[in-house]
Each structure stands twice: as structure tokens, then as C-alpha cells.
């Protein structure tokens, strides 16, 4: 039972996207094709670079077709259409006078469509998707960049590049947050009936055991401190003393973390959180797939502020003077009446209703 987190170069690429990356090996085949085009010799280096970037995104899209063919034929069809159009445009750079508006339109449509796809949960953000968007934004930048001086044209082109990067990143972030902030889950076997009973009993015991901490002041007095921004809708508190090696891992009376919702009348306890002390440890999956140990590979912390400084962007960056860390595995055990189950993905609307005293 291993979490998916790994530090090798391809570790951030979904398995069904690896063929998309492998397809880049076919990219050199575009060279003889480009050279045969009538406008190749006269084309500027800038246009040639755009053609290569368009060809790269074409082969990546075509390489993604097999991985989606069974699960989502419609997505595969979109990849095919996209790949063929990008391939055609790469050649059109040397043959067609009006390739620029066409490339601008296709690039913008593809970047926004990908963003909406991940934002709405049809696809998860992965490194190949993010990197391909960077390639497309660069191609867009070189396509829309004016050929002659002129303040207004250059400002418009620069603003467009910045805006496109921001929109792509913003939508990608939306997709990451929807996937429990990009959490990676520990593989677990299919739960048996006994697993389900044990998990339900532990959830009930756990909720009863943290009853004293429904008052957040009691939690603070016991040593719990906020580890996520305290003004946000939900806040995580952790007690460093309970995270030390050798301590009980899953003592319901001493969970390593507590999660509260910020309400109009104060903080409302949503459940407890068990946190392992080391990244290489594996949580006891007594509940089989009923429980879900996970880790967050995209937290940014800063040695200057000594706290969370943001989430890694979809393009893999933290704010300045910050670095990316991978949290140790954790398990949320919510109030037993949480709509998605005590071990499920937190229902934000339920948490909001609780915080407002409506549930």
C-alpha cells in the first residue's frame, strides 16, 4: 500500500498520459515535413519556433488518445480533433498567410477548454497537462507578439499573455482544490463487511472522544495550534506533541489534528485528523477503502513566515522565499453524520450549514 507521491521526473504524470509524453519522440519526423513546405526557407526563426511548438502540442494530444479511448471516447475524439488541427496549423505556418489568427483562436480555445475540463472535474491536473499548457501559452505569445514597434499593440499582446497564464492557472487551481487540494491517496484493498463495521465504530468512538474540543479554547489549552489560515472557511489545528515518533498513532482521545469550520458564532468542530510522523509510514487501513489516508504534495511553506505560504501552482511554483513540501500521510475522521461518510471528502455545504448553526 503505497501513496503515489514520488520524486522522479515522471511521477507527476497520470499513467494514462504517459503515452502523450512518449509521443514527443515522433516530433523530429516533423522536420523533413517542414522543410518541404514552400515558405520554410523564407520563414523567420520566430515562426519556425511557433511551428515546432504547435507540432509538439499536436503529437502530445494525439498520444493522449489511447489512454482515454475506453473510459472517455468523447475526450479521445477531442484530442484527435485538437491534434489534427494543431498539426495542420504547424504546417500552415509555412503555407498560409492567415495562420496567425487561426493559431491564436485554437490555442486560446484549447487552453480555456482544458481549464474548464479540470475545473469541472472531468480530468485531474497533472504535470503533462500543465507543461503542455505552458508550451501552448509560449506558442500563443510568439504568435500574437507584434512584428513592429507600437506601444498599444505590445501592451495588448503582453496583457493577453499574462491574462491567459492567469486564467489557465486559476482554472487549474480550481481543479486541484476540487480534488481535496491535490491529495494523493494510499491504495487500500476492497473493504469487507467487518472492515466497514470497524471503521464505523472507530468513527463514532473518535467523535465522542473529541467532544471536549468542541470548545476551541479547550483545544488551544491542550496544545492544538492552527496550521492552515485561521480565517478561512475550514481550519486545521495540529498538536505537535502528539505527532512525535513513538506516540500512539490512532488514539481517539489524542488525535494529532482537529478540523473546525468558521461560523458566525465561533468555530464548530467538524472532526479529528490523524497524522503520521514520517512520510514513509503507512496508515493502518483497518477500514479498507472505507478510510482514506492521504498526503498533500503541493503545500508551500516559507522559512520567513514559518507557516503555509500557499499552494503549489498548477505549473509547479511556490511564492518567493518558499519551498514545496509533501505532508506526512493523514486521515480525516469527520462527524459521523457527514453526508459523504465519516471518512469521505468533506461536504463544504454541510460544513457551512453547521457553521451557520443551520444543521
Amino acid at each position, binding site marked *: 500500500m503505497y501513496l503515489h507521491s514520488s520524486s522522479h521526473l515522471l511521477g507527476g504524470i497520470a499513467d494514462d498520459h504517459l503515452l502523450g509524453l512518449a509521443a514527443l519522440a515522433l516530433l523530429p519526423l516533423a522536420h523533413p515535413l517542414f522543410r518541404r513546405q514552400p515558405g520554410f526557407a523564407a520563414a523567420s526563426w*520566430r515562426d519556425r519556433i511557433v511551428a515546432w511548438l504547435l507540432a509538439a502540442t499536436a503529437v502530445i494530444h494525439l498520444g493522449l488518445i489511447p489512454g482515454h479511448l475506453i473510459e472517455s471516447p468523447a475526450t479521445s475524439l477531442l484530442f484527435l480533433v485538437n491534434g489534427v488541427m494543431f498539426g495542420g496549423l504547424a504546417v500552415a505556418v509555412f503555407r498560409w498567410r492567415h495562420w496567425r489568427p487561426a493559431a491564436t483562436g485554437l490555442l486560446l480555445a484549447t487552453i480555456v477548454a482544458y481549464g474548464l475540463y479540470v475545473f469541472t472535474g472531468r480530468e485531474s491536473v497533472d504535470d503533462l497537462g500543465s507543461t503542455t499548457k505552458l508550451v501552448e*501559452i509560449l506558442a500563443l505569445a510568439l504568435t500574437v507578439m507584434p512584428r513592429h514597434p507600437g506601444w498599444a499593440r505590445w501592451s495588448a499582446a503582453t496583457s493577453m499573455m499574462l491574462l491567459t497564464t492567469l486564467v489557465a492557472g486559476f482554472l487549474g487551481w480550481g481543479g486541484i482544490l476540487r480534488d481535496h487540494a491535490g491529495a494523493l491517496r494510499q491504495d487500500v484493498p476492497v473493504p469487507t463487511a467487518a472492515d466497514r463495521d470497524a471503521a464505523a465504530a472507530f468513527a463514532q468512538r473518535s467523535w465522542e472522544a473529541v467532544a471536549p474540543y468542541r470548545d476551541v479554547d479547550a483545544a488551544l489549552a491542550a496544545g492544538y495550534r492552527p496550521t492552515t489560515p485561521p480565517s478561512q472557511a475550514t481550519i486545521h489545528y495540529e498538536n505537535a506533541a502528539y505527532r512525535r515518533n513513538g506516540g500512539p498513532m490512532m488514539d481517539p482521545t489524542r488525535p494529532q489534528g482537529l478540523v473546525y469550520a468558521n461560523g458566525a458564532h465561533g468555530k464548530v468542530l467538524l472532526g479529528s485528523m490523524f497524522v503520521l510522523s514520517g512520510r514513509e509510514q503507512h496508515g493502518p487501513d483497518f477500514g479498507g477503502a472505507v478510510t482514506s489516508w492521504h498526503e498533500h504534495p503541493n503545500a508551500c511553506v516559507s522559512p520567513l513566515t514559518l507557516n503555509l505560504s500557499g499552494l503549489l501552482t498548477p505549473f*509547479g511554483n511556490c511564492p518567493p522565499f*518558499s519551498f514545496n513540501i509533501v505532508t506526512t500521510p493523514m486521515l480525516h475522521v469527520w462527524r459521523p453524520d457527514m453526508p459523504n461518510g465519516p471518512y469521505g471528502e468533506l461536504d463544504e455545504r454541510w460544513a457551512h450549514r453547521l457553521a451557520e448553526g443551520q444543521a
Partner: protein
Amino acid sequence: MTTTREFTFALLVLQAGVGLLTALGATVAAIGGFPGDALLAAAALSFALGQVTGAVLIARGSRRAATLIAIYEGVALFGATIGSMLQLGTDAHLAPWVTNIALPAALLALTLRLRGQATHRAGAATR
């Protein structure tokens, strides 16, 4: 404008756009209750503005801007290399590798090349 300048301009604006995203993340953390993160957001915003300004000046042929951007990219590359050596997280993945290592490395190489070209032109003019 030369291809090197155009390409440098595009990469710098791309880097600025990604930097603005990190400013947004730090701003959310600051508003959420970690006020110290506002400093990081301000730093990210300043760097992004500096990159866009540098891109414009490089497009106009400024040797000094190329030098400053080269220094900035060198420092960024050094920091990213140290970060990946410490193996604190997933920095070795493709997307972080592209934006934290490959992009600064490409910009460092391009700005050094632009500096070299400018020096060569200046030398030719004095002869």
C-alpha cells in the same frame, strides 16, 4: 527585433504570469489569516513587475536589463537547485522542473547571449 530578444521577451512574460499566480496564492493565505504571507505576495508581485519591465527593456535592446535579468535568473536557478537537492518535496517532477529549472536556465542562457551580442556591437562601433 532579433529572435533571441523575441524569445526572451515571451519567456520572461510567461515567467511573470506564473509568478503572478504565486502572488495570488500568498494573498489568499494572507487574507485567510497568515498576515506574514502578504510580504511574500508583495515580493512575488514585485518580481513579476520586474520581469515584465525587464522584458520590455530587453526588447528595446537594453544591455543593463539583460544583465539584471541574468543575475535574477542565476539566483533563482541556484535557489531551485538547492531546493531540489534538499529533496523536501516534489520539485523533481516535470512541471516544477520546467518552471523552476529549465525556464530560468533558458532565460539565463538567452540573457547572457544578449549581453554578449550587445558587447560585440559596442566593440564593433568603437573600432
